[in-house]
């Protein structure tokens, strides 16, 4: 078992087999610097719980394919990314920090799926981006590929 500590000082015990899916922790264990508690100053306990839930489920990725549990895993993945924006970004940051490749891919794909079909205005609002392009610059981008700015699918809602 490996102990992880979130930035709000909560400790979590995780099986080694699960936790080594994180390249970062795997390296730490291999180098022998994971003897006591591993502090994770960038991750709060709420996000860490999510990440551990993922790690535990994905513990035996290779086995799952054999036993036909792949669909089950896929379903879990779909459920897993069903969370709020803020939360999703927290998990992405954590996955990036811990270097968990599969989780990173999954969450980034989910984030991209949510952005897909959105209007530019909606994207700015969703990600709290202020538009720093001048009107001419913006027009130029639109003129480059006007077809990309039209289409029946454009979704102006923010969620």
């Amino acid at each position: 078992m490996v102990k992880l500590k979130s930035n709000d000082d909560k400790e979590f015990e995780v099986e080694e087999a699960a936790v080594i899916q994180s390249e970062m922790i795997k390296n730490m264990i291999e180098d022998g610097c994971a003897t006591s508690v591993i502090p994770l100053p960038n991750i709060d306990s709420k996000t860490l719980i999510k990440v551990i839930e993922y790690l535990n489920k994905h513990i035996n990725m290779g086995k799952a394919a054999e036993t036909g549990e792949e669909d089950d895993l896929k379903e879990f993945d779909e459920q897993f990314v069903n969370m709020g924006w803020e939360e999703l970004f927290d998990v992405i940051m954590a996955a990036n920090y811990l270097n968990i490749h599969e989780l990173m891919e999954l969450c980034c794909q989910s984030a991209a799926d949510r952005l897909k079909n959105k209007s530019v205005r909606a994207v700015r609002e969703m990600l709290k981006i202020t538009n720093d392009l001048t009107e001419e610059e913006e027009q130029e981008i639109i003129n480059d590929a006007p077809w990309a700015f039209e289409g029946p699918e454009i979704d102006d809602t923010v969620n």
Partner: protein
Amino acid sequence: MEAYDILSQIIGNLPVKFLLRFKSVSKSWNTIISESQFAKTDLDLSKIASEIVWRPKKKLILLHKNDGVFEFRNLENPRIAMGEQVFPLKRFRNPSALCLCHCLVLMKTPIDDIEYALWNPCTNEYRTFICPYPNGMTPLGCGLCYDSRSSEHKVILIFTSFYVVYYVKRNYWMNKKPIVVSREIALDERSQEWSPGITVNGVVYWSLSSSGIRSWNPVMEINCETADFGYRFARDVILLGCIRNGEIVFRAGGKLVIYDPKRCNFEYIKIPICSESFYLLKSRCGLVDNHIVDNQGVHLYVVKHSSIRALLGIVAMHNLELEQLDVKIAFLHGELEEDIYM
């Protein structure tokens, strides 16, 4: 810096249309999309797509799901679907994707031998063109290639006694060029199977069937720039695809055949076959850049070592386990219930 990386990873998963649209979100988005992750192709495809074509760095597989619906998958992680695209031209019923070159796909409907379409599934733009030559004849094969000299795409159609080239940008058909394979052997006009060509380094390759000497068939090649053709014979080969170093892979009976265009050399690789023959050899599948891809999206790496690559192929296709055993201690592992291929 870190946030920048993450952001580019997220938008790297978006289809091209949205990349272009989201360039106008802010300055930093514009920079990310324009520079870091995505290379603007230097190809002038303006006539086809009517816009610039963008090619994401990710390698995508295009799978045909059902009537005109295609699905993108990431080659590195095929479990995750990257979105769907529907071929927009409804008139083309049950279209099939024949050839692929850069971002363009040559489409044809099975009910018609005259009209073809070039489709860019990334931008969903398409353009149709009509072949003036067939006179009721069905082409035996087709190819799509890019001529970097005149910077345009060309479509090649092969008929029994001649072939024609269509210049995409200029919308112009070259005159027929005769095909004489040899005095004894002609291309088999009864062949019902379409042979899509594969483009490697500016040359399109086909395996065609011939009438005459049984079991030998010509491997045709047409140079994209000069439109000259050449051929050589091999026994019973069916084209599968190409691998990264430019070698071309065929299957022939129970063997994989690797053809090296530089040395003009066919190399036969024996595949240990079990009673019900090896998946790869009975299914229609292709190779994309070192991966074997079929309509189920199964894939595997074809490694350089020639005999190992075939073995690994079987293992991955059947989802078997690969164990490396020292021959001396193999008997210590007790009774073997599974079949093991060595």
